[in-house]
């Protein structure tokens, strides 16, 4: 009996010493954060500037005090926008690298991984704003930093209503979306919003993940006489659609989702982009807002000859949000998945200096914000034309 007691004491002692050692290692060590990026896949046109934004943001945080003195180490992977690759990368990050949280990318892979991150308690801050990720009852560990795709589409449809002057009939709207989870994410929300708000949804055209030509879809849409069309693919796809539409001489007014609309669009689509609207949850690079200074300073110091866009700003704002949560979790001595989740859910009206709307997460609502600015391309420049704040309707949570 006595020997058992002493053995227990020995074990206890060993555990305490082990804990001390691990705390020691932790205090001096670095914080590993996973980064899942698309640098080579079908969304790499927007994936690359976003990834650079995240990397630069991490470097900036590390150079400015880190996480209460600890450095962040970004364990990043290019997964080529392939769900199987994302799953393999996730296993590597959580199994071998033991990352504390992940900065993710696409809708398909984020929604596919949602059960994994829930089981493993890994906060997963995705670049996908899919509305399906906003209900903590279903996806407690998923976060993003923007209004949801659904709220953005609702905001754009609200703009359509205000832009439509002919009161004799309802505006006719068409949706263009990619044949993947990202493309389809806000479509159901858009359909319902059209029905409830007297907008005539006349056509839905599905384009492949990667495509070179959209003429047949545009001709279909022309037959349905759509006045407005919302494009839910990335910048390259949007510019193909816009150029084809110009070739066909369509008078439809096009609008774009946040991954098809940035400074890069007028650069690629040239004059076909004139008058096109888009939702822009993150401001263009160099916009006169207080939060922009650290970005432009960093840019001038490290790579003054590069050009940047709103996607780059988006990457930065992600890092600013989750690094704040890491700091708070660290202060609470809870630098683990659950602690970071709790810290994120404690962010209330967190101010990013205007890079994006203030961010609020609660344990029952992961919609970071509901304010969506609408920008228009006027003589090659992005000009803000409106901003819509969608109500936090409970029935919209998770849609």
């Amino acid at each position, binding site marked *: 009996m006595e020997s058992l007691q002493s053995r227990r004491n020995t074990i206890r002692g060993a555990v305490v010493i082990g804990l001390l050692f691990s705390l020691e290692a932790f205090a001096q060590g670095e914080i590993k954060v996973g980064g899942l990026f698309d640098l080579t896949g079908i969304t790499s046109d927007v994936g690359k500037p976003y990834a650079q934004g995240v990397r630069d943001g991490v470097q900036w945080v590390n150079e400015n005090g880190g996480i209460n003195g600890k450095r962040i180490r970004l364990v990043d992977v290019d997964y080529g926008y392939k769900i199987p690759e994302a799953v393999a990368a996730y296993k590597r990050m959580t199994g071998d690298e033991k990352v504390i949280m992940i900065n993710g990318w696409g809708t398909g892979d984020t929604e596919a991984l949602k059960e994994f991150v829930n089981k493993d308690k890994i906060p997963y801050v995705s670049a996908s704003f899919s509305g399906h990720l906003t209900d903590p009852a279903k996806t407690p560990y998923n976060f993003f930093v923007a209004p949801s795709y659904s709220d953005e589409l609702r905001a754009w449809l609200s703009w359509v209503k205000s832009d439509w002057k002919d009161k004799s009939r309802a505006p006719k709207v068409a949706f263009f979306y990619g044949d993947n989870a990202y493309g*389809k994410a806000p479509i159901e929300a858009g359909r319902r919003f059209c029905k409830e708000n007297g907008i005539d949804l006349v056509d839905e055209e599905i384009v492949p993940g990667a495509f070179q030509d959209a003429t047949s879809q545009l001709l279909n849409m022309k037959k349905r006489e759509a006045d407005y069309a919302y494009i839910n693919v990335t910048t390259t796809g949007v510019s193909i659609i816009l150029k084809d539409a110009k070739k066909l001489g369509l008078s439809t007014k096009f609008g774009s989702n946040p991954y098809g609309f940035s400074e890069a669009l007028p650069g690629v689509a040239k004059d076909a982009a004139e008058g096109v609207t888009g939702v822009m949850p993150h401001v263009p690079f160099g916009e006169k807002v207080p939060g922009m200074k650290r970005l432009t300073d960093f840019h001038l110091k490290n790579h003054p000859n590069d050009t940047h866009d709103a996607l780059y700003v988006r990457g930065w704002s992600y890092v600013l949000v989750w690094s704040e949560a890491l700091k708070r979790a660290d202060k609470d001595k809870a630098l683990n998945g659950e602690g970071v989740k709790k810290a994120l859910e404690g962010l209330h009206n967190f101010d990013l200096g205007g890079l994006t709307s203030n961010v609020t997460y609660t344990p029952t609502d992961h919609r970071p914000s509901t304010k969506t600015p609408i920008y228009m391309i006027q003589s090659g420049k992005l000009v803000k034309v409106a901003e819509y704040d969608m109500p936090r309707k409970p029935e919209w949570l998770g849609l």
Partner: protein
Amino acid sequence: MRTGEFRTTYAADMAIFETPLARWSLGVFLVLLFLLPLMATNYWMDVVNRICIAVIGAVGLNILTGFTGQVSMGNAAFLAVGAYSTSLMANRWDLPWMVTVPIAGLVTALVGMVFGTPSLRLKGLYLAMATLAAHFIVEFTVVHWESVTGGVNGTSVPAARIFAFALDSDTRLFYLIASIAVALVFFAKNLFRTKVGKAFIAIRDQDISAEVMGVNVYKHKLLSFGVSSFYVGVAGSLLAYQARIISPENFPLSVAIDYLGMIIIGGLGSILGSILGAIFITLLPELLRLLTGALSGALPGLVQLFASLRIGVFGLAIVLFLIFEPDGLAARWHTIKNYWKLYPFSY
């Protein structure tokens, strides 16, 4: 055959292990294989599991293409059939892997035989095109039959479990996957010592002579499609348990081409070749990834080139093998083995 080696019985001629040493070294290899999880990290267990799954699929494809001479481009599709039937059985009816794995194999065998029917009339390139149709038909079905497959979003598969013990990590799952792989490899090895296996080979070598000799060519072609698809179906089923999330992106046409690459590089008509080829093709991207990762400090642009690099090296490997070692890694292995057998007096 070595000098001084005499075989006096048919049994000796048919033996799998030519010498007791071969038998023992295989035994040691298997013991080491099953001790692997004690040493390897999670990441490498993931790779090893994918290799074992690829071995099953490659052996399956080799039975059809290497041994029976029927080209198939439908491998990715058959994998998908195995994976999605597993997900259906495990999600809807909560069936354990002991039921889902064999049934997924049987379902895939049936599908494979249906798509194998054109082999009655078609050979070579024409059959390849006909099986390519299988790929597109299955892909279309998977993408659009959303209630069962989850469409482009994919569907998750519950972890396989042995009673209450969930095989939810690659280390745990390894024992299941590796055991099935070993069993199926032995079955395939023995298959070609039987009448049916010999009939497959006869059809490959000359189908008209085979028919003259009394082999029912069509029956055996279909049987070969069935056996081969069973293997691929089992591989698909295990893939579902390993990946836990399956979507149409798991089964692009490039997977079918990868599998053809495995048996070409490994060696057509060789079980050992299927294994070596599966290891080679599965490890190739992982080693390239490590290499580009290690070099990313010196050459930052390399990581962006990774995807194209993978495809380029894959193509180059196939071309080089076709020119310098058309019989694949298995033939190279035999050359090396024979060299050392007679060392230092090789001739």
